[in-house]
């Protein structure tokens, strides 16, 4: 059986492959996003418990909330960088013209 951690690492490797072979700058940014998605999957997988519930107080068997919280922060970084990289690409195109 494939578990989410392994799937996450495979997705990270796919992203790395894209970064090593694709020349188009937008594709490079997309490959970085693929790496980040693999990372999110890896982390969510580490926190997951079979049959776990929402981690709010009066429940017994809950999933680990910390990885999910950390991944929200990583997603924010990802969004910020993606928009910055796209802005840089736009500006580079304009300089070339």
């Amino acid at each position, binding site marked *: 059986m494939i578990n989410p951690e392994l799937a996450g690492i495979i997705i990270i490797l796919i992203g790395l492959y894209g970064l090593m072979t694709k020349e188009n700058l937008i594709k490079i940014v997309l490959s970085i996003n693929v790496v980040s998605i693999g990372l999110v999957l890896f982390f969510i997988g580490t926190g997951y418990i079979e049959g776990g519930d929402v981690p*709010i*107080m009066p429940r017994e068997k809950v999933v680990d909330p910390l990885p999910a919280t950390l991944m*929200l922060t990583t997603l*924010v970084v990802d*969004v910020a960088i993606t*928009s910055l990289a*796209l*802005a840089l690409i*736009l500006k580079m195109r304009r300089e070339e013209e």
Partner: protein
Amino acid sequence: MKMSLIVRTTTKLISPFLVVYSAYLMVYGHLSPGGGFQAGVILAVSVILLITSHGYRRVRKTFKFWEVQLIEGISGGFLVLLATAGVVFGGFFYNFLRGGEIGSLISGGTIPLFNIGVALKVGAAFTFMFYILLRWVERD
């Protein structure tokens, strides 16, 4: 850039509900799944939907550039100041408003306030980013 009438009408109908849902997630973030970030993303989506269907020029007239910038900065400053206010009561980020029985709306203390701040910050920042990128693209 405008899309067809059907899309415009649908997004106009959906957007207010998204805002209400986002407000619910903001306020009840400490009692139910959800929280500041998710609420903020949904808040931003409600504006971004309108941008995609009606075009940037039209939406900019309602949600002005400087208003979005103002909300973004003020909510960020509010978060830091709220965290700093905790120093007076015992520590940075100290929850000084604790009270009420567990499960009620006010039992979170400063946490709902933080959720609201984060949601406004995230929503405004996402919208702002879209505005800036679109302003660049639409110029030519």
